[in-house]
């Protein structure tokens, strides 16, 4: 049954060398990227790799994930069998059957036999799924079917070989191989010559497919087999929305306008992507017909790297632009469609960071090309001149208070800085939330103060839109002000202020205790500082909409739900897409300030989902979500449903 080692050995050596050379050639391309430290906190990284790569925690969280888990583990286990297979091809004496005692050999082949059947079953399921209900449009590629067929063929060849060997009586551990044994019974009655031929053909089929598969990997999307495990090791440990700062000195370039402006990890990400399409499915832009598709962003980066990487390695200039209209380039419209909601990041089983790359490219467009959607010119000017997105006079900032006396923050006399934010200060609807917050804090006897006229915009939209230069300027001003005034504890009602003050300003050396209003109210309730009338439940049943910046970007999921439960006496209803799978309102990432010309409107998509349960109230925790939900309701002409912030729900119930 064994082939002649004289024939097989050179074949194996050639296949091995070509594979090694291909891997080197491909993986060395990531070296054109900029440096980035992804080796810190080794223990945490190893733990992440174990959990997400080997236990496939994220893979199994969505449909057909279990199927992948089976294929993955079959692959690992059968790697032992395949290694033996290849080694025995060169050194027939090295067969495990000859080396291992029966007590070890028999359980081992039993496992191989069963696992091979599992793998075959999983592959058949995957093939059927892809044919019948593909994960996304365009997923029925020859490449995908080819790879699955190859794995299937490997299993069939495995069974063919062993069944024939058993039928020939050449397998001592036949009783330990139930699947092969069953198949051998089908071959019973065949002559030894036929059986030998079956075994021979199976052996060569197995060897051929195996070596071809190995050499095909580096050139296909299945390179993820090699890259995904390390990618889980290299996963970002910081909040991914907090991008590295840029240094503004003459001679520097900003953002990613060419492939070598990404970091090596950005480029490695592109090799780790197997185009499963989960990011695409969760992306609010992709699922409402916008030109952005995070899967294709990764695909185009990879195509670009393959086109330009070699040139760059030889000291040349890239020929395919990273931002543009061709394959291998990402369309500007795609970049401007991103709401920075982070759904792609949460969906990716192997922690590819799609959204931060979009921000890097936006940085290039804004800062190097001054090329951005028309509407943003006003926003940028308003921010620079008046420190708020609407361009309202800064002197008007404290006016939300009306006639109320609200203390100015003063370290020592007021404990918390209540950072109202631009929406809470200027947007007429959000001002009501601000007033609700002051009522709550007054009722609980919280010692707080505001900055009033001196408050400035946190700069969130600027940073997500890639105008890092202006963000940097505003962040410095804010940080200086906080430090000068001795601010240490901040309460916010806008998740965008929250994340910026908490995560982004840390890069400026400012460590604040920033508490989103949901958590603040929750703690006031827990401490018994608020007396609520549970029966004063207004607005019918409540459905809760997660803010991306509170939820996905900062992990605050339960506090708002707990607050609603306490304020109304019952837990809120959930939409189908909730918590880390929540669907953006459409306003993040600076989209609040842009027109939505392309595709279905994201807020309508979300409002339709919210209305499925026929709620009396959609409860939000973010001024942008509030605007988008209210606008969406107007469009759906649903008179009965209202939108409320959690602070308003609580303030209504105050006794």
């Amino acid at each position: 049954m064994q082939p002649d080692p004289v024939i097989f050995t050179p074949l194996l050596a050639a296949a091995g060398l070509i594979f090694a050379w291909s891997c080197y050639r491909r993986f060395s391309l990531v070296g054109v990227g900029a440096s980035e430290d992804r080796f810190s906190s080794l223990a945490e990284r190893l733990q992440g790799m174990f959990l997400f790569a080997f236990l496939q925690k994220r893979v199994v969280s969505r449909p057909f994930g279990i199927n992948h888990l089976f294929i993955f583990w079959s692959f690992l286990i059968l790697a032992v069998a395949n290694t033996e297979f290849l080694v025995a091809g060169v050194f027939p004496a090295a067969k495990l059957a000859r080396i291992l005692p029966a007590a070890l050999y028999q359980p081992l082949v039993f496992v191989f036999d069963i696992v091979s059947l599992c793998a075959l079953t999983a592959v058949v399921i995957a093939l059927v799924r892809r044919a019948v209900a593909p994960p996304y449009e365009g997923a029925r590629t020859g490449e995908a079917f080819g790879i699955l067929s190859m794995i299937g063929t490997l299993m069939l060849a495995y069974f063919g070989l062993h069944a024939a060997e058993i039928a020939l009586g050449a397998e001592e551990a036949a009783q330990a191989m139930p699947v092969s044994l069953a198949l051998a019974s089908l071959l019973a009655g065949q002559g030894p010559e036929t059986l030998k031929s079956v075994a021979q053909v199976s052996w060569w089929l197995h060897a051929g497919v195996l070596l071809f598969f190995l050499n095909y990997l580096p050139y296909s999307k299945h390179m993820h087999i090699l890259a995904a495990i390390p990618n889980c090791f290299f996963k970002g440990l910081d909040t991914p929305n907090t991008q590295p700062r840029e240094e503004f000195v003459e001679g520097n370039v900003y953002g990613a306008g060419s492939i070598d402006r990404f970091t090596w990890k950005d480029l490695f990400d592109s090799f780790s992507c197997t185009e499963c399409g989960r990011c695409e499915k969760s992306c609010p832009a992709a699922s409402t017909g916008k030109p952005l598709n995070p899967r294709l962003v990764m695909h185009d980066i990879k195509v670009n790297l393959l086109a330009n990487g070699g040139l760059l390695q030889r000291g040349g200039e890239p020929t395919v632009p990273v931002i543009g209209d061709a394959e291998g380039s990402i369309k500007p419209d795609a970049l401007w469609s991103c709401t920075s909601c982070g759904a792609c990041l949460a969906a990716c089983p192997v922690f590819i960071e799609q959204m931060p790359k979009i921000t890097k490219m936006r940085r290039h467009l804004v800062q190097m090309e001054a090329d951005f959607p028309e509407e943003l010119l006003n926003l940028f000017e308003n921010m620079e001149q008046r420190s708020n997105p609407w361009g309202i006079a800064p002197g008007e900032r404290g006016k939300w208070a009306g006639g109320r006396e609200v203390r100015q923050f003063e370290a020592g006399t007021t404990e918390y800085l209540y950072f109202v934010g631009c929406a809470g200060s200027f947007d007429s609807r959000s001002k009501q939330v601000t007033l609700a917050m002051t009522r709550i804090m007054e009722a609980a006897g919280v010692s707080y103060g505001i900055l009033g006229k001196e408050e400035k915009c946190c700069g969130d939209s600027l940073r997500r839109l890639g105008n890092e230069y202006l963000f940097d300027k505003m962040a410095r001003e804010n940080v200086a002000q906080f430090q000068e005034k001795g601010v240490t504890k901040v309460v916010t009602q806008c998740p965008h202020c929250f994340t910026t003050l908490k995560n982004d300003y840390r890069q400026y050396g400012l460590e604040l205790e920033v508490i989103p209003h949901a958590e603040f109210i929750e703690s006031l309730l827990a401490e018994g500082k608020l007396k609520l009338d549970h029966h004063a439940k207004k607005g019918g049943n409540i459905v809760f909409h997660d803010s991306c910046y509170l939820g996905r970007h900062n992990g605050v999921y339960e506090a708002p739900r707990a607050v609603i439960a306490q304020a109304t006496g019952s837990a809120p209803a959930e939409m189908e897409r909730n918590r880390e799978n929540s669907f953006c309102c459409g306003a993040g990432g600076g989209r609040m300030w842009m027109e939505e010309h392309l595709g279905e409107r994201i807020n309508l998509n979300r409002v339709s989902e919210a209305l499925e349960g026929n709620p009396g109230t959609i409860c939000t925790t973010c001024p942008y979500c509030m605007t988008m939900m209210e606008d969406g309701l107007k469009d759906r002409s649903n008179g009965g449903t209202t939108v409320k912030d959690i602070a308003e729900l609580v303030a209504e119930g105050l006794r």
Partner: protein
Amino acid sequence: MYVVACIKQVPDTTQVQIDPVTNTLVRDGIPFIVNPYDTHALEESLRMKARYGFKAAALSMGPPNTEATLRKALALGVDEAILCSDRAFGGADTLSTSNVLAAAIRKLAQEDEVGIVFCGKQTIDGDTAQVGPGIAIRLGFSQLTLVDRIEHLDFLAKKIRVRRKLEGRYEIVEAKLPAMITVVRELNRPRYPTVPMRLKAAKAEVKVWDNKELQLDPNSVGLKGSPTWVSRIFSPQRAAGEIIGDGMGDPAGTARLLLEKLVASDMLAV
């Protein structure tokens, strides 16, 4: 050939309030911005630079802090930024301002021919729309106001054809160069500075020309050269409004009521 954009630093009028006691503008802590119409003048000069290879110069008159405005122009890509600044220029009205700016353009013309001067149609603080025409008259330039489109420029034949945006109509006119053009917002969409240009502009030179350089008669500049002075600024009082009828409950009746009122007060001819 030079193309010059005259730009003015103005207080951000959305933030300016009038002191009810003194009837003067409260300017404390009010940020300055580039007069919005002038940003379109500047943009057009930059487009001409890009298209025809002219040298673009930004010109302003004002106190030393006007430099910030000129730096913005440098960040957008002008080749030269000139600030006419002298204590003697202070307190100027539109007449003495145009004297100074015209003198600066004359001085610039000693270096190279000035083909076109762009100005915003008016400023948002004074709202007079007089400085541009004043410059044109003093320099003997063709005067094209309220331009919303450059139809054609033939700088060899020294001719320019533009469209003027007037009330309810457009007018296409042709004039000889050199010309002074005041622009409306529809003319173009101003660009945004790139970061490298901002950083470069921060170190670039803003030329400051005082009256030693411009050599103007001290009686023709500043307060002395200004026949106009502001005696009082005030917000006109508005009479309180009146709610007529019940628009929600009885729209037809309310409309009739409104019509009667309008006819009675002679606001509508029947």
